């Protein structure tokens, strides 16, 4: 059985799409060297016209990708640092995302933005540790947060083939994960969830790196409670149908994700479940505190991340 690492899965997905479609190209900083792993070896294989190093001008090259997409290319952009998404929010949310509607459907902007290592990387402090997927979900940009290597592969392939701008967050906590891959790797549809562990008492919705925490806690509590671990994989559009099927069965809900609490993804999940589904106990959500800025010291960094102990406590609380 082959073990596939998350970083290798992303790299392979990008290589396969570059091979398959000559319209696919990659722009970013230090991507010829492959410092963020996503593009390792690809500039050598596909040449500098397909895998193009840019100067440190994130706003310009993000909109250049939009212009190139308007002319038939399918650019992929790598951002080494998750907080760069704040810098290019104008170019993604206000330009690329709006072109299709504003032009009355004259154009598509098939650009994929990849952040290899989003969220806390332990020790990278305030401006390198954000997990801003809720922000993109809020403005309606397709937003993907794979937890598993096979999903990282399949969702990156789908994002590149998709006709809309799509942001893929590869959580730092998941980048080192390895998975036994037993089936042929292939595209994973955007907007479809995956249940990693079937359970009957409580649905734990876990996003990105938190999926691995949820699986560990579910194992740990297996003698007392049957936990279903639900991974949306895509946070926008969200697979509400699959969540309804899970919650209909369990009637209980805990959400764990590492976005900030206020206006974060967890709040949207709780709200939609409250409006449209049936719970037998009040739900819980775990995330970073309201408006958190990640402090540097490791103890402080961890103190603002949702953790396994908190998840176990929350699961027990909804079971009472």
């Amino acid at each position, binding site marked *: 059985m082959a073990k596939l690492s998350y970083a290798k899965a992303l790299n392979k997905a990008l290589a396969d799409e570059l091979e398959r479609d000559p319209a696919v*190209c990659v722009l970013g900083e230090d991507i010829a060297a492959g410092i963020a792993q996503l593009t390792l070896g690809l500039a050598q294989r596909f040449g500098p*016209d397909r895998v193009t190093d*840019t*100067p440190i*001008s994130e*706003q*310009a*090259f*993000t*909109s*250049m*990708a*939009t*212009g*190139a*997409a*308007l*002319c*038939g*290319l399918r*650019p992929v952009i790598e951002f080494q640092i998750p907080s760069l998404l704040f810098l290019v929010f*104008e*170019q993604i949310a*206000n*330009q690329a995302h709006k*072109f*299709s*509607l*504003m*032009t*009355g*459907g*004259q*154009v*598509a*902007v*098939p650009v994929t933005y990849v952040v290899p290592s989003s969220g806390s990387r332990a020790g990278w402090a305030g401006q390198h540790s954000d997990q801003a997927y809720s922000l993109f979900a809020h403005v*309606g940009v*397709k937003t993907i947060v794979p937890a598993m290597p096979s999903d990282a592969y399949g969702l990156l392939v789908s994002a590149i083939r*998709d*006709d*809309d701008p799509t942001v893929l967050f590869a959580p730092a906590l998941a980048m080192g994960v390895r998975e036994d891959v037993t089936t042929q790797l292939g595209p994973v549809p955007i*907007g479809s969830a995956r249940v990693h562990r079937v359970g009957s008492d409580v649905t734990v919705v876990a996003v990105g790196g938190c999926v691995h925490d949820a699986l560990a806690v579910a194992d740990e509590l297996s003698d007392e409670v049957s936990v279903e671990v639900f991974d949306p994989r895509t946070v926008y*559009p969200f697979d509400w149908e699959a969540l309804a099927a899970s919650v209909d069965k369990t009637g209980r809900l805990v959400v764990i994700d590492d976005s900030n609490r206020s206006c974060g993804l967890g709040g949207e999940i709780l709200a939609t479940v409250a*409006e*449209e589904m049936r719970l037998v106990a009040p739900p819980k959500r775990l995330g970073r505190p309201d408006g958190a800025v990640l402090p540097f010291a490791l103890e402080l960094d961890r103190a603002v991340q949702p953790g396994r102990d908190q998840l176990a406590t929350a699961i027990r609380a909804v079971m009472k």
Partner: protein
Amino acid sequence: MAVITPGPADLYRQMRLIRSFEECALRLVKSGEIVGGIHPYIGEEAVAVGVCSVLRDDDLITSTHRGHGHVLAKGADPGRMLAELCGRATGLNRGRGGSMHAADVGRGILGANAIVGAAAPIAAGAAWAAKRSGSDRVVVTFFGDGALNQGVLLEAMNLTALWRLPVLFVCENNGYATTMPTAAAVAGTAAGRAAAFGIPAVTVDGMDVETVQEAAAGAVAAARAGDGPSLLECLTYRYGPHHTIEFRMKLSYRTEQEIERWRLRDPLEIEGARITATERDRLDAEIADLLNAAQEFAKASPDPDPSGALDYLYASGLRARAGVR
């Protein structure tokens, strides 16, 4: 594809089209048929017409919030443009874009853009795609003096120079960023910014369409030949307000005397003097008829169906959840 450079009659006709279109649009703003107002292009016609007169049909442009002139000069249908301003289903953007986002991609118009300077890197990306594909298309990005202090414009200049992309930066310096005089906002000059990146730049009289045309022709030819970007600064003036909202408020950021001084150099009068009075009358009448028809078309066009308000939000066809369920 050979380009036949338009002569005085054609240049005058295009400027007359834009002037009369804007006058018509102003009437429709006043009558309430255009909501949200417009940024009138009156006074600056020589820039759009001079530059677009040397472009091929398959060349591309990006435009600005004050974009009607560029869009018309690149060949958009005035009736569908007016319908777009009126928010009709037959508009260029099916009523989804309005004045500040008018686009006609089939005619190489990648869209007006409502964020100052934001279109420059989009134009650079289009030029990058053209160059990669082996095409000799050229991309023109129009922007105002207000964009000279936007970072993305400078980033785009660096990248286009570095990668020798076929982009013509056209700075329409009309003396004001909304109400702020250029002198109060810009340290250095447009040409100086270009020079810093090794981009050839010229500053020309933006009220004389033939001067603009001649300068643009050289820059476009250079870009097409693979010599990379150029910058063309056109000194011009808007006779009207920054935006029609000014009609409802009394702003005093420039004097009547200043406006009158610039009126003496009206681009339509400068070019109009180069054709015969008979020719001019004929073109004026032709444009009047054309705009009457455009206006009738726009007014007779249906409003878009509110049930499709978010059609085209996703090119892939994804439907957004409703706000109320």
